[in-house]
């Protein structure tokens, strides 16, 4: 992709970090980053306060769409060769686990998914999350708890 001009806060490295955490594959994460940056150029919110939450939402939804779009019969991408790290079956197991978690995340409501990932991936406080999403702090906590309980059920079902 040739050079682009981006608004502030649209940090490609941060977007890449979110994408890689879900996809665990360098090329897929770069593709996802490019896709998100195109969306930034098209329709990022003008308000800087909302832009961060919007970016996280778009990135995570984009990655989950990619994961949902992967054919079930296609072998999952293995970035870590067995000779350099854990044994192959451990790597495959962790890849399977990652896909299971990603699919479960995809089943949450958007509010639940945003609050949960902001807390776990970015370590934001409930107050910060509430402010960025334009909701009350107790509401953010409710979303968080419901997301965890729903995720727990989904992970059991997907075993």
């Amino acid at each position: 992709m040739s050079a682009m001009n981006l608004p502030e806060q649209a940090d490609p490295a941060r977007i890449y970090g979110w994408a890689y955490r879900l996809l665990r594959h360098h090329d897929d994460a770069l593709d996802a980053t490019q896709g998100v940056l195109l969306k930034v150029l098209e329709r990022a919110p003008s308000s800087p306060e909302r832009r961060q939450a919007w970016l996280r939402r778009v990135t995570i939804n984009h990655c989950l769409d990619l994961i949902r779009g992967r054919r079930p019969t296609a072998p999952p991408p293995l970035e870590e060769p067995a000779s350099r790290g854990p044994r192959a079956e451990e790597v495959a197991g962790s890849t399977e686990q990652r896909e299971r978690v990603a699919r479960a995340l995809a089943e949450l409501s958007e509010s639940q998914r945003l609050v949960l990932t902001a807390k776990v991936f970015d370590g934001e406080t409930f107050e910060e999350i509430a402010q960025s999403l334009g909701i009350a702090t107790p509401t953010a906590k409710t979303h968080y708890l419901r997301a965890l309980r729903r995720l727990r059920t989904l992970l059991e079902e997907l075993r």
Partner: protein
Amino acid sequence: MNCNEIEERLADYLGGELGGEERVRFEEHLAVCLTCRREAESLGGTLETLRDLPPVDPAEANRRASVLEIRRRPAGLRGIVWRALPYAACVVVGVCAGVLSPRPTVAGGPTSAAMTGIGPVVPSVPTVEGTAGGIHPMWVAAARESQALQDTAAPIASSFALLAEISSRERGGKK
């Protein structure tokens, strides 16, 4: 602390935002209440599963994302002019190509001045035997060239529209 109070504080506890005296009392209840303890441990396990998606090192993320050749846009009018320059250049090149491209001239056919729009358009259209509809091939070529320029101009026009929208958002965001 009772079980209802535990439920009210469970999000804070799991989210690492319960501290001090409240955390002590919370954990004292978990020590004596099996139901609450199992719930907290179970949800804690779910959190750990999420945390098992480890983050990428920030320096590594910067290195990987650097291939995308991003630069920050300059602000204000200078930014608008800077962004418009490549598209303006395309328009100029397209117009020059249309003006300077050679036009065959045939006695009785449209003059090159007429076809470039510089001079008056000659209304007479000499026909050529065997041509569909009796249209002179010179007119057909001119129409194709005009269509080609239109095809080039359409994406440029939409790019200008996109630029205008981005600039409008910037101005709106600075209010």
